[in-house]
């Protein structure tokens, strides 16, 4: 079973800081990590490969420093790593990102039987990319999977949706987005890390390698724009009133009058 895993390098949330003047995330000096659910997806892929054979290719779209995440994925056991990088990819929204990833996946040889993605990332948290890739590749998709079983010509997966536990049979090739609980990322042997950085190769594909035009990707290829990024003002804590019901009613009416929500006529009902 040949598996493609999409991973993203994201800021390590405990170290993240906001530039409150520019209302942007400060990325300098912030450690970057593999998005946690992408790590779960990778671990699941490695487990499937170890059981059923095949290979695992990891892909990431990002700036050159995203290579760090790909090398870490190689150290964890991925067979091949592909970095999709180009200045033209900058400013991409999820649609534009998905287009680049889908194009790259379609170019893999052999074509993967299964694409795994984390359900969402801890920075943008949209959950869009996996489904959008599936749509472009015309793969059946299931989101938020926490169990995968392999049958002769299909996968049987479980996911929780709207409070219901669903068991679904999915023909391959397919795309699954994974949730916590599917697998626990393994600890990495230090020698494998050393070799991932010194001996292993990370393939780099840019705009031309993928046969894409500049207007299809990055900011130009995006259907959405980020207008403003801000932290919401802290919500006021509510006040809990306690006491006998008739006193509560009196107190509440007094409060609502003071706030101008009730006038005297409404209060006297």
């Amino acid at each position, binding site marked *: 079973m040949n598996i493609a895993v999409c991973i993203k390098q994201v800021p390590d949330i405990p170290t993240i800081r906001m530039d409150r003047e520019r209302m942007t995330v400060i990325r300098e000096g912030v450690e970057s990590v593999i998005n946690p659910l992408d790590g779960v997806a990778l671990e699941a892929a490695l487990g499937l490969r170890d059981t059923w054979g095949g290979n695992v290719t990891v892909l990431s779209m990002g700036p050159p*420093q995203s290579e760090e995440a790909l090398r870490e994925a190689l150290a964890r056991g991925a067979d091949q790593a592909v970095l999709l990088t180009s200045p033209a990819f900058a400013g991409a929204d999820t649609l534009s990102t998905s287009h680049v990833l889908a194009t790259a996946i379609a170019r893999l040889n052999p074509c993967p039987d299964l694409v795994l993605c984390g359900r969402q990332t801890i920075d943008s948290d949209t959950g869009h990319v996996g489904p959008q890739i599936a749509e472009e590749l015309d793969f059946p998709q299931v989101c938020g999977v926490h169990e995968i079983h392999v049958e002769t010509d299909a996968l049987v997966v479980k996911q929780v949706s709207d409070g219901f536990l669903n068991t679904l049979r999915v023909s391959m090739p397919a795309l699954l987005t994974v949730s916590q609980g599917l697998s626990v990322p393994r*600890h*990495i*042997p*230090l*020698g494998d*890390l050393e*070799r991932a*950085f010194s001996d292993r190769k990370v393939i780099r594909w840019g705009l031309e390698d993928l046969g894409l035009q500049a207007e299809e990707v990055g900011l130009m290829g995006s259907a959405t724009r980020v207008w403003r990024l801000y932290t919401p003002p802290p919500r006021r804590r509510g006040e809990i009133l306690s006491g006998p019901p008739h006193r509560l009613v009196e107190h509440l009416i007094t409060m609502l009058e003071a706030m101008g929500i009730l006038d005297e006529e409404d209060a006297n009902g």
Partner: protein
Amino acid sequence: MHLELSMKQAVIRRTVRKFAEERLSPAAGEMDATARFPLEIAGEMADLHYFGLEIPAEYGGAGLDTVSYAVVIEEISRASGAMGLCVCVHNSVSAYPIYEFGNEDQRRGFLVPMAKGQKIGTFCLTEPNAGSDASALETIATRDGDGYVLNGNKIFVTNGAVSGTNLIFALTNPAPERREFTVFIVESDRDGLEKGPIEDLMGMRGNPVCPIMLSDCRVPEKNRLGGEGEGMKIALSTLNGGRIGIASQALGIAQASLDVSIKYARERRQFGQSLSDFDAVKGVLADMATKIDAARLLIYRASYLRAKGLDHGKESATAKLYAAGVGVEVSRAGLQMHGGYGYTKAYPIERYYRDAKVCEIYEGTSEVQRIVIARHLTKK
């Protein structure tokens, strides 16, 4: 000049920290309380190449550079000083000398199982009458046919109770005008080697430190490491690198102390505000952080020089001297900040304080480090 860790080294730090926080931190308190060495965790660490850090892959090791090694020791020690000590001593002063001074048969026969964590190593130099004055050692190796017979007592052997491979320093020429000693690789199951009870230590209590006694212990010549009389050369070269590991241990303990102190200072409220709002406390935290930064840079400098194959005796002594002091100072300041709670076993800061002290003592006391540094400064 580039002061940041490389991409690889940063990932190594993150990887080790994750393992240490998940597997070692939860066990560290119990290790200290029961003075139990966690063989099961050591087994996991063996599979992850923690026992062959700088040993090349061809001998079963991870093949890391010295800066990466220092980072690993720091992160392990941040979670557990006792396990950091085990990994440091095994790697830097037991396995590495076999790689550096051993022949190919010794590398294949002794080093490979050590690098894979199948045999834990020791460095047996100290004796009841030979501490800082290592040349006063009395363990003797007498030629006997195609081997040697060893007699003597070694004390304070780190990892001793669980070791499989021991580097024993013994006199091969006791003549006063020309005292020479030699290093022997002695397996723990060799006849004539016995281990005493585990020491009841102030700190690093999860490390199984014990004495090793040799009584007519016959060792074949093929177990001799290097030539006869090369023991001093091997010891000095080995300790140069070993100092980087001890410094990194102390740094990890200091970092752990700072981390818990910041958390406590934020949470603890007195006189209507958090401790961290008091200027006096801000000053203490700033001093702790500054010392830690300085110690880290000294360690990285020594590691960088060693990785490049350059002389690093003065720099490694400087790193150990300073970092060991920082470990004690920062853990003490952290304990003071915790107040009465810091004096209880409920908080880890008292363990850090007890663990830190020995870094000023073993593998060359701070006083000896000063002599080493001064010799470099004043040599003609």
